[in-house]
């Protein structure tokens, strides 16, 4: 390991084994449970992704019908109906939209179900595999034109067609990654809206059609400039697994996906979140989609200097849970952020220490580094200076993915010109200070090294406490982000089900097979 910070390797190992200890009961809980959204995701993977006249998705209509049968897995009813009626999935989807009852027919024998499942899984698997290969090939082809860190910008007009214009412009300007921010509170919707949308607040609805529209636009714009442009959305909120599934189908490349974000910041039930998170990650892992965890969010509510260790602690938990879902490090875009008060003396050094620390603890993760947001003000010039130093830290510490700070962060979702200025700033700093990180070393016992050691120590201390209490109780007591969430509280708890002994989910089986038993080609 690279020891630029002179970190104590034992402490890092201790932290990791604490994370493992913390994850253990989570893992066994997950094993034993499913949720309505995992089931809907399963149905959608089989192709049930239309909607009725009111816009209610067929996946939701189906789950409504099957609400008593969830412990057994919804898949067998869909497959059963297909076998019994002889319809294609597309036909059945339309039928459900018109009121067709999946459970009405009864079930065929398990052999027939297995055969149907195998057929459909194989077909969709082919799509996922093709997507994965296409992406790998394109990235490979254009690798030398990518930036380091990759430039990540958001579009958030609320209107997918306007978003497309904005996205085209950033591709022209040099961005590598485009994230379509979701409308406020989509995380609280227990369904995924349908179709192209033009009305969102502070973001645009995540829908399959919107994914498609943006994917196409980015592919086209990328071809023009000879780069592969990555598309990002949110596998987060009450529909986490479904969005992961839709993203995999429509070749998204990254997904915001965190094990605790929804619990803490959206008051979604903790069990629901953890089960959903596991399934989502298996889907994303299979589809070779990078996840972005949400540790930056801790620092928008808590003080970044005081609570720097909560970021590292949460990353270790996210890492562990990602491994548990079969996701390799190279897909774990662990998040962190540059959020200290710019008025702090030597704050730049602390930011540098934090970013370098996280780099060293996770040497093979594509870290996602978030820009200053909380301390951005209406003084767009001061904000631009702040972003300049943020870009410098990103480059110096070898981050992989950098979400570009907007000078208008405190004012509005980005204007087209705001993103341009952000990209210009980053390109300037990356080139002008290209080798700065390697050309200097941190003084022994200096401020930077001491700060990194301190954060690591505090992380271990904190994880000891969490491991002692258990993660569920720790969240209950408000140990994370000063926010208390009770185990049975929050949204979506009624959508969590204990699996019956005969629970059957061909997609889960396939994913496990592929991810854990080397079945992935």
């Amino acid at each position: 390991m690279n020891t630029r910070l002179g970190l104590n390797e034992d402490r890092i190992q201790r932290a990791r084994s604490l994370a493992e200890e913390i994850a253990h009961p989570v893992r066994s809980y997950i094993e034993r449970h499913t949720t309505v959204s995992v089931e809907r995701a399963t149905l959608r993977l089989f192709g049930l992704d239309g909607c009725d006249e009111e816009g209610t998705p067929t996946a939701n209509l189906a789950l409504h019908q099957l609400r008593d049968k969830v412990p057994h897995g919804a898949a067998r009813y869909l497959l059963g109906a297909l076998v019994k009626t002889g319809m294609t999935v597309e036909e059945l989807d339309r039928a459900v939209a018109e009121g067709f009852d999946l459970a009405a027919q009864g079930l065929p024998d398990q052999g027939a179900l297995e055969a149907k499942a195998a057929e459909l899984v194989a077909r969709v698997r082919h799509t996922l595999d093709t997507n994965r290969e296409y992406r790998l090939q394109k990235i490979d082809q254009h690798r030398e034109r990518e930036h380091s860190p990759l430039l990540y910008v958001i579009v958030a007009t609320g209107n997918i067609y306007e978003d497309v214009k904005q996205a085209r412009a950033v591709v022209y300007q040099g961005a590598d990654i485009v994230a379509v921010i979701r409308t406020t509170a989509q995380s609280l919707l227990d369904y995924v809206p349908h179709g192209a949308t033009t009305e969102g607040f502070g973001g645009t609805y995540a829908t399959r059609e919107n994914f498609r529209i943006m994917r196409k636009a980015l592919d086209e714009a990328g071809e023009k400039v000879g780069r592969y442009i990555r598309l990002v959305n949110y596998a987060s909120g009450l529909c986490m697994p479904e969005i992961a599934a839709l993203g995999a189908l429509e070749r998204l490349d990254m997904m915001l996906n965190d094990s605790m974000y929804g619990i803490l910041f959206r008051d979604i039930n903790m069990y629901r979140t953890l089960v959903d998170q596991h399934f989502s990650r298996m889907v994303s892992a299979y589809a070779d989609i990078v996840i972005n965890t949400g540790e930056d969010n801790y620092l928008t509510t808590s003080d970044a200097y005081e609570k720097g260790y909560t970021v590292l602690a949460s990353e270790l938990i996210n890492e562990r849970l990602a491994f548990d879902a079969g996701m390799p490090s190279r897909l774990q875009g662990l998040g962190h952020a540059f959020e200290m008060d710019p008025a702090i003396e030597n704050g730049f050094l602390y930011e540098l220490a934090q970013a370098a620390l996280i780099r060293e603890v996770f040497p093979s993760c594509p870290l996602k580094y978030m820009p200053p947001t909380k301390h951005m003000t209406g003084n767009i010039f001061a904000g631009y200076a702040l972003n300049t130093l943020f870009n410098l830290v990103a480059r110096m510490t070898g981050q992989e993915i950098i979400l570009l700070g907007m000078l208008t962060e405190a004012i509005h979702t980005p204007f087209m010109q705001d993103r341009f200025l952000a990209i210009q700033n980053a390109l300037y700093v990356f080139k002008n200070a290209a080798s700065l990180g390697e050309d200097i070393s941190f003084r022994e016992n200096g401020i930077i090294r001491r700060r990194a050691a301190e954060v690591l120590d505090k992380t271990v201390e904190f994880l000891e406490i969490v491991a002692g209490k258990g993660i569920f109780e720790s969240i209950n007591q408000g140990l994370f982000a000063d926010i208390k969430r009770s185990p049975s509280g929050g949204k979506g708890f009624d959508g969590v089900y204990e699996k019956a002994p005969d629970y059957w989910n061909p997609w889960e089986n396939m994913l496990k097979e592929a991810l854990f038993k080397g079945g992935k080609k």
Partner: protein
Amino acid sequence: MNALKPYGDTLNDGRMQLSFTLPVPCSPRAREAALQYLRKVGLTDPQVVYSEALDEGFTFFVVYATSDAVIDYDTVKGAEKIEYMSFDEINEFIKEKIGRKIVVVGACTGFDAHTVGIDAIMNMKGYNHHFGLERYPMVEAYNLGAQVPNEALLDFAREVSADAVLVSQVVTQKDVHIDNLTELVELFEAENLRDRTILIAGGPRISDRLAMELGYDTGFGPGTYAEHVATFIVRKMAERGIS
């Protein structure tokens, strides 16, 4: 009468900096369009000091221009400086002039989840070394947190007989805050609670003027501390003779 114009480096030179984007390809024609546009707006001597393509169909401009418009500063209303009471003064004032604890309920309403602002005003620890309302011995403060439906806020306010209700709105895209704030006032009016409740809005894009236009007693923007809000509430209560 006091004629007011922007100041660049000489009194009344009227110089202003602008930046904006036009949805046309970057070219001499686009630059000419930018100049004509600014003249149409009424600015004189515009100088495009920078123009660059944002892509094939959009151009970004940085411009300096002169404004010849003048307003009479003497007729502009607004406080030169507002004198706020301190933590101690406020508690003292409540004891003396109102004679009982006052009840304040706050929330971030609608789908807005930005609690940092309302927390800054209400939570114990406050913000920037200014204590929040929960710390005031003479204030009974209830912070309902994020994503609170207007109906729930109203119900709670009625239940605790709130003297003042604080509403935070941070997301303003497509004027969602206007709709939300308006709905709340209408609810209070429909329930005949408007008159006995001081309604205060706050958030980074909220101004005194906007809040009053929407039917609130006042509004607070960036840089607000608990004592600002409390000063307003207690003076208003005293003024209305509430006790």
